[in-house]
């Protein structure tokens, strides 16, 4: 049972350490690449929580899709990567103070909350029930999400298209 705690510690350290590098890396391309271990760490935490299919979705969609899209954004804006003299803007001090305060307050509030823990053993996350829920009671949000995705794709094409006379 201590293996679970060890796995959690390793995954949490991986996630938070690479998230720190995402935020602090001088080179924006390195920052985007550090997002990969961070997202993989979150996928590992999903596995630890017992939702294998969300971990798979995380790897396929986030690492395979969104991260590649962000790397495209970096590569299509040449001259931007790798020459940042100043990574942060002028509000870095107050941003640090307020984010540290935010984290402190959140942890303080959440840790003191008397949660009613319902399941002490890992629940069984079956993909069949998830699929039934997605195409049953949650059909409308599911369809709205797909329409929103379509609208975003069309909007991205219109925005990124080069105007020619």
């Amino acid at each position: 049972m201590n293996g679970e705690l060890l796995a959690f510690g390793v995954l949490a350290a991986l996630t938070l350490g690479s998230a720190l590098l995402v935020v602090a890396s001088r080179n924006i391309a390195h920052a985007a690449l550090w997002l990969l271990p961070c997202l993989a760490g979150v996928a590992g935490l999903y596995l630890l929580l017992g939702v294998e299919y969300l971990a798979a979705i995380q790897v396929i969609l986030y690492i395979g899709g969104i991260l590649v899209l962000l790397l495209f954004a970096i590569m299509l804006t040449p001259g931007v990567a790798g020459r940042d003299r100043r990574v942060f803007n002028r509000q870095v001090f107050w941003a640090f103070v307020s984010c540290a305060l935010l984290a402190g307050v959140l942890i303080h509030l959440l840790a003191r909350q008397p949660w009613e823990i319902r399941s002490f053993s890992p629940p069984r996350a079956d993909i069949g029930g998830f699929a039934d829920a997605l195409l049953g009671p949650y059909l409308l949000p599911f369809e709205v999400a797909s329409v929103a995705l379509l609208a975003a794709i069309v909007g991205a094409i219109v925005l990124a298209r080069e105007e020619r006379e």
Partner: protein
Amino acid sequence: VSPLHLNHYLIVSSLLFALGAFGVLTRRNAVGVLLGIELMLNAANLNLVAFWRYLTPQRYSPQVFVLIIITLAAAEAAVGLGIILNVYRRFKTIDVDYVSVMKG
């Protein structure tokens, strides 16, 4: 009985959220701001799954939420890419400190 508790996950996701917020507030590169937003979305997702695991294991709504958030994150990244490309063409930079023509 597992030695892990809900609080472990909540602490990790709080720290992840604060790191993402710091990135959004301070990064000068527009892509860096998008990276910060991704970190914050991941923190929210981790929170939802942790609450599902410990508080409402019989329901599917948290996982549906997570799936829809991931979908909308993909949409946000696509539109963000389009906007960043447009800004780059117009200003020859994507430093958000210089792109302030709409500032009053």
